[in-house]
């Protein structure tokens, strides 16, 4: 009978490469390293579809770099030229509209996939020992990607680019004592113009490659600690695991194609779902749009920013909502990882998702009227979950019994 042990696992009986490959591998073991990490690498056998998003994010990142480089070749980072250079990419550059559509859709779906990836980590407790560094590098990536996305949104220099920059630089200016200096460092001059735009163009381009470097650390970390899994218990025997190839390569491929279908449907058929029409009007410092709002992926933080009466307080709340995630491995002391066995946390986490969405909707409504109350309640819940519920749950929660092993839980003991 075929079992995973004798079909997929080559680690024990793979002959060393010969010929040119062997010659290279003896001097620089790239081939055997690739085999060890991407062919024979063992993963828990019970990973579900949420584990596809790592691969999806990697592919989207490559797509962003590939399209971004060609867009950058045709972009002019000046106050007077930026908007028209993007128009020229869209209209006159051969295939430019497709490049730009891929980059725009990619930015949106990158953030979407990132949020799902992050949620998976929260739900299955992937931030707990021994994966703290994996979690922290992931959060650094989140911050870097958000900064990159923000800088990128400035570049077309439309009305929303300009006024978004105006809101953010002024929010930074609200930091006590050093705010004025920080704002000046960001804008580079006394108005949002050439210097600002050029700075953010360079920042956008640079950050994209720094993200690749940190992704390297993130992936290294997951290959050291191994993947968590939906049960949140460590694999004990070989029976609990499967090799990356062919099991998870085929599963990732299916996930990637489904993701690509969503990607192409949005890009080709419903591009306006993701684009902000007001950004097709060139930046005009003399004319404030009636409705300034960020892209959807920043709306929850915008909701937090607006729910606090003081500008600096809002900035603290928005930044704090991410900072608190960095302390998560030490706030949640429960030895049980997966929310499947933590009834209280499971409900609490569902509430967290609801709060996050409500903050986004409130942000869209500028936290006015009823939405101000909703935003404040959701904000309180968000911080309450991490700072109160999780530390308490570790002590009070009655957890469900863990299975003895992954294979046992799969009915293969």
């Amino acid at each position: 009978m075929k079992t995973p042990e004798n079909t997929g696992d080559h680690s024990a009986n793979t002959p060393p490469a010969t010929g040119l490959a062997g010659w290279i591998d003896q001097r620089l073991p790239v081939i055997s390293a690739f085999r060890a990490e991407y062919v024979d690498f063992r993963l828990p056998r019970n990973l579900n579809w949420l584990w596809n998003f790592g691969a999806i994010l990697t592919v989207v990142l490559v797509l962003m770099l590939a399209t971004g480089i060609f867009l950058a070749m045709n972009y002019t980072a000046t106050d007077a030229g930026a908007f028209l250079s993007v128009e020229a990419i869209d209209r006159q550059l051969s295939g430019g509209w497709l490049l730009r559509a891929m980059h725009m859709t990619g930015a949106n779906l990158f953030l979407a996939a990132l949020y799902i990836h992050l949620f998976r980590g929260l739900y299955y407790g992937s931030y707990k020992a021994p994966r703290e560094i994996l979690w922290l590098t992931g959060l650094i990536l989140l911050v870097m990607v958000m900064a990159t996305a923000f800088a990128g949104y400035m570049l077309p220099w439309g009305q929303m680019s300009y006024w978004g920059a105006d809101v953010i630089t002024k929010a930074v200016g609200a930091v006590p004592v050093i705010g004025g200096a920080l704002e000046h460092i960001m804008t580079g001059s006394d108005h949002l113009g050439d210097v600002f735009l050029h700075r953010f163009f360079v920042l956008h381009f640079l950050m994209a490659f720094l993200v690749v470097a940190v992704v390297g650390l993130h992936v290294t970390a997951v290959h050291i600690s191994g993947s968590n899994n939906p049960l949140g218990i460590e694999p004990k025997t070989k029976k609990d695991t499967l090799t990356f190839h062919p099991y998870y390569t085929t599963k990732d491929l299916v996930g990637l194609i489904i993701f690509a279908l969503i990607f192409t449907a949005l890009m080709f058929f419903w591009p306006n779902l993701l684009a902000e029409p007001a950004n097709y009007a060139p930046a005009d410092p003399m004319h404030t749009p009636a409705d300034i709002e960020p892209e959807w992926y920043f709306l929850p933080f915008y909701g937090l920013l607006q729910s606090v009466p003081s500008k600096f307080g809002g900035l603290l709340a928005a930044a704090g909502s991410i900072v608190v995630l960095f302390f998560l491995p030490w706030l949640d002391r429960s030895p049980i990882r997966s929310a499947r066995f933590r009834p209280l946390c499971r409900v609490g986490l569902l509430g967290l998702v609801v709060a996050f969405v409500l903050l986004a909707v409130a942000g869209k409504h500028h936290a006015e009227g009823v939405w101000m109350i909703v935003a404040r309640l959701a904000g309180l819940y968000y911080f309450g979950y991490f700072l109160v519920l999780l530390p308490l749950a570790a002590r009070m929660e009655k957890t469900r019994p863990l299975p003895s092993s992954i294979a046992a839980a799969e009915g293969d003991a």
Partner: protein
Amino acid sequence: MMKTTRLLALAAAAFLSAPLTTLAAVPEPLVPPHQKWDFDGPFGQFDQKALQRGFMVYDRICSTCHGMKALTYNDLSGIGMSEQAILDLAHSKMIAGPPDVSGQPTSRPGRPDDHFRSPFPSDEAAAAMMGGVAPPDQSRLAVIQPHGADWLYAFLTGYKMPPPADAPVVPGKFYNDWVDGHLIGMPPPLMNGMIQYPDGTPATVEQQARDVTSFLVWAADPHRTARHRTGLWVVLYLIGLLVLAIAWKKKTWKRVKSQ
């Protein structure tokens, strides 16, 4: 203890409900009636004949006041204009050239890769000549304007001459159902039979409005037809690929499941 709790609750309630008073009644924006357009929906495509008629309306009427500076004459190949027709069209437009040796402004005939000629030397000049407000550029007008095509059509056919009896009369302003406050500085641009379509389509105000609306939507999203066509093939290809990938995955995982 009870008192503290109640105080806290009160403070919380005050904190939460403070801005409730700012909730004001916002007037509902006018929603123009929906028209049927060929280019609507995820598979919609432009009708090139309509686009060509629409360009005629734009070129003869709109472009006297409205720029469309993101487009070049070459882009008109997208509405099916021939290379020769584009060359002739560009050549008929006089474009500002560099100052001559004595510093005097010059002009030259346009080339296909020139951007559409702007009707005014600058936005400031346009505003000064047009009663304080520069006519908006039309490159992306159909995207920026809420309700895009439906609004453009409603607006172009929405002038009332003479205005309704109860409407305020302001010299130099015209009554239109579809603008804020119903008054606008732009006079009714279209009239029945004002132009003659070479394809014999009767040039009613409604027909011209439909055609020029199509053209403006095309100008704001010139690759829509190509996008929809390419998209269809890409999606079909991916579905085929998905079927194969699922089969491969099932075959692979059978070894795990069948133990």
